[in-house]
């Protein structure tokens, strides 16, 4: 197996190759990378791959934003079951 086939976002099964090609084609920001590939948009809310998407976005010295977190955090920051969300008593 090579780097190319390596999975970066496990929830959405997005590979390293797909992310690098997207970066090279569109020279996009971390947020745009996420929106184009769905990396970081799965069940875990990007807990695992967030940092990697940031790094891929910095390919070829794209600048780093050092004042604000580059990928927005959205509540709920932990998975919540539908039962709890709907307030349904079991």
């Amino acid at each position, binding site marked *: *197996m*090579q*780097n190319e*086939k*390596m*999975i*970066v976002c*496990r929830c959405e099964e997005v590979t*390293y190759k797909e992310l*690098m090609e997207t970066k090279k084609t569109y020279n996009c920001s971390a947020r745009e990378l996420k929106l184009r590939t769905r990396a970081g948009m799965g069940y875990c809310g990007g*807990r*695992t*791959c967030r*940092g*990697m998407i940031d*790094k*891929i976005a910095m*390919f070829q010295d794209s600048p*780093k*934003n*050092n*004042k*604000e*977190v580059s990928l*927005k*955090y*959205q*509540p*709920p*920051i*932990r998975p*919540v*079951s539908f039962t*709890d969300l709907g307030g349904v008593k079991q």
Partner: protein
Amino acid sequence: MNKVIIIGAGPSGLEAAITCREQGLDVLVLDEYMIAGGRLLGQLYEQPDGTWWNGLEESKIRYEKALELGTRFLLNTPVNNIVQTNEHWTVYTDTESFTAKHLLLATGAAETPVPVPGWTLPGVMSVGAAQVMTNVHRVKPGNRGVIIGVNVLSTAIAMELKLAGIEVVAMTLPVNSQVTNESSQPKEVMNSLLHVSHMAPSKFIKLGSRLMKNDFMKNMGVTFFPKTGVKIWDIPIQLRKAVVEIYGDNEVQGVIVATIDSKGDVVGGSEEKIKADFVCIAGGLYPLAELAAVAGCSFYYSEELGGYVPLHSERMETNLDGLYVAGNITGIEGAKVAIAQGKTAGLTIAHHAGIPGLEKDIQTSIESIERARDKAYIQFHPGVKKGKELLLAEWQNRLGE
């Protein structure tokens, strides 16, 4: 309504809870894990004075003290959102919400994952997971492990695994890619290793740390780093090899390592297999600041502190009213620093809650954070002091705006 809510029952959260209770404030602590203690639970090492730092016991002592003082705890309770409304904070969990005038985020740190081909196989885990299995749950993660990623934390945990009778057959680098960068560069890794040399009984590393003060010597060090690695506690550490793939049919069966040049690029044809039944990935730590981000805190990125940290004062206040931070959320450091920060945060909260006469105690507690930092046994980044200074300057800067 609660007076104070603390999210995180790690060393900083526990110390803050104790401090607030001693000042007579009503305190509720929430933690998503089933045991109080946070990352302190897994720590086990011999200190320079020959005594042992046993995190399980240290956690228990603080948790029991907080309980005795009348702190309320809700464990097994993840917080998924916090919102500021009309001068108080609402904290959301799966089934309930709580409000308080003062909210402390003591959520600690998380591990940075480093992807390696095959890292989704069962049997691959973060090095912190191996630490928790071994030291907290007392379950062996396997019998023969390989650790990918050579840094302070993985070196410390490798030793803990050894103590538990688990064989670590190799510690080596991840294969070079855009997502591994520094952690796959022999020179960068060598550089950071020099700061843990005091932990290593190996002559090579000890000698090396004195010789390698300049770049030229570091390059030479990497070039002449023995191909077979150097041994620390009998574990071969290889900076001139990298794992190019983790293999196995349905679970980990081993890794393929290859020789790399001093830039981290693989030398073709040098691949060989090493058998293992578990693999740990060690990518280092970053401050877990999700809730501060959701709340809308100002942030600052600092390599030395491990990533994005909420902007905060020496007294542990954020730029949002009634929101405080303590522990590793403010930068990656050891447990003793986290404890000292928890105390400062507790006193600052008591001060804002109207308890008079705390000014001197606050100043003393700020000084003891500095002292704990200077004496720290484990330093996660050699530039942590500088990182803290820059952050404070940025705080004062933006406050002035």
